[in-house]
């Protein structure tokens, strides 16, 4: 019973829910601010993402007459709840060790594509040509970036499992404690290709340039999100913000979970700073310095680079 309440608290307040959302929205504001600076602009105030969501909540909800009503409404709710649950599984090194101790890496692997699936569901439900094009693109992108992700997670699990002698370690808590004892995996030469692959995975899964193909404003008018507006769009945005936290937090937990000291607030701040640095390198700067790939180019890019890099790590782990 107590466990259940605790789990719900973890999903709603820390590290999922409120905390994840606050961090993610703050990151989003910083991201927009930095992008603005890079483009010689002032940029929005730091509170802007909150204002955007507040605005969307005050707008009326329009549901297209041709849309499948239930699926249309369910999709953003699914994206939001999926990510809120997923965020509870992200360990904050030195503060919180994740929701369970058993195979939570696999749970994350299952939960991560939920926003993408929800987006596809919403796109299919809204019965709009642009949304359907967005749907097929989203699907292709998901296929493209899920493959390297699976291999990266496998490489990490196998490396840790091999060293600790359990075969493959799918518990994030154990992976963290292994790293605490033996140094971060990001510094492990064998894991370097996997880390680079993860960094390339990030813009794809977050749908930012050069991989913002499903939502390409200039090609398919925001694609799956075309028919969404008002509170439902706000839910999508919250879901996407939570996802930012999840993927960044996962990246830090997998590769650089090192802590500074035993005092938890310091560790918490250190974790946020690391997430931010990861975002800066993989999302903000890349977004500012590139355009958008065509869907086929993006697909082959993912097959050629991150998948191969992750495979190299996997093979090296296997061999060594």
């Amino acid at each position, binding site marked *: 019973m107590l466990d259940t309440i605790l789990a719900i608290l973890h999903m709603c307040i820390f590290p999922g829910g409120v905390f994840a959302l606050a961090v993610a929205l703050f990151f989003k504001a910083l991201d*927009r601010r930095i992008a*603005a600076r890079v*483009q*010689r*602009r*002032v*940029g*929005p*105030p730091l509170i*802007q993402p*909150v*204002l*955007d969501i*507040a*605005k969307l*909540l*005050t*707008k*009326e*909800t*329009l549901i297209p007459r041709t849309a499948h009503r239930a699926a249309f409404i369910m999709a953003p709710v699914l994206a939001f709840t999926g990510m809120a649950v997923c965020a509870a599984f992200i360990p904050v090194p030195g503060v919180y060790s994740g929701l369970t101790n058993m195979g939570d890496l696999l749970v994350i692997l299952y939960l991560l594509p939920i926003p993408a699936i929800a987006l596809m569901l919403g796109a299919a439900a809204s019965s709009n040509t642009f949304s359907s094009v967005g749907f097929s693109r989203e699907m292709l992108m998901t296929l493209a970036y899920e493959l390297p992700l699976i291999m990266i997670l496998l490489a990490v699990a196998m490396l840790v499992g091999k060293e600790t002698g359990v075969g493959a370690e799918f518990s994030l808590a154990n992976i963290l404690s292994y790293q605490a004892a033996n140094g971060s995996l990001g510094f492990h030469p064998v894991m370097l290709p996997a880390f680079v692959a993860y960094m390339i995975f990030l813009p794809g899964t977050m749908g930012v340039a050069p991989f913002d193909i499903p939502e390409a*404003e*200039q090609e398919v*008018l*925001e694609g799956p*999100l*075309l*028919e*969404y*507006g*008002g509170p439902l*769009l706000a839910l999508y945005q919250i879901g996407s913000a939570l996802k930012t936290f999840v993927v960044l937090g996962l990246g830090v937990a997998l590769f650089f979970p090192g802590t500074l000291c035993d005092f938890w607030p310091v560790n918490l701040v250190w974790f946020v700073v690391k997430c931010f640095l990861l975002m800066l390198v993989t999302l903000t700067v890349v977004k500012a310095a590139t355009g958008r790939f065509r869907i086929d180019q993006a697909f082959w890019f993912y097959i050629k680079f991150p998948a191969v890099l992750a495979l190299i790590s996997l093979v090296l782990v296997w061999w060594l």
Partner: protein
Amino acid sequence: MSNLLNKLSVRSPWLFRINAGSCNGCDVELATTALIPRFDVERFGCRYCGSPRHADVVLITGPVTLKMRDKVLKLWDEIPNPKVTVAVGICPISGGVFRDSYSLAEPLDHLIPVDVNVPGCPPRPQAILEGVVLAKKIWMRKLGIEEG
């Protein structure tokens, strides 16, 4: 609570542009206003959006040709309330240099309720910015809150 939300909401006006048969002048100036660093509307929380469903402030350019009329009306209907309509350039306001042409529909304010006019041929980006600021004021009025 909803009052607070309303107050916060006007600080995030998203712009949507409808070209109702303009000569490009106003459109280029709109793109300039909305997207380039020099005028940076993101300072005011504005964003240029691709879908009418996301829009709050709709900027209409061009003298509403007969062929575009129904499309403009349909798009305008797709924008969720509350919305503020801004007519940019003299064409949507009065027909401008194209007045009396056989292929123009009525002036825009006979078709849909217009809130702000920004005349000019084309108006300079700073004037369009003034229009957006004015649109924000009207939005607040529509939500029933006064400036404070």
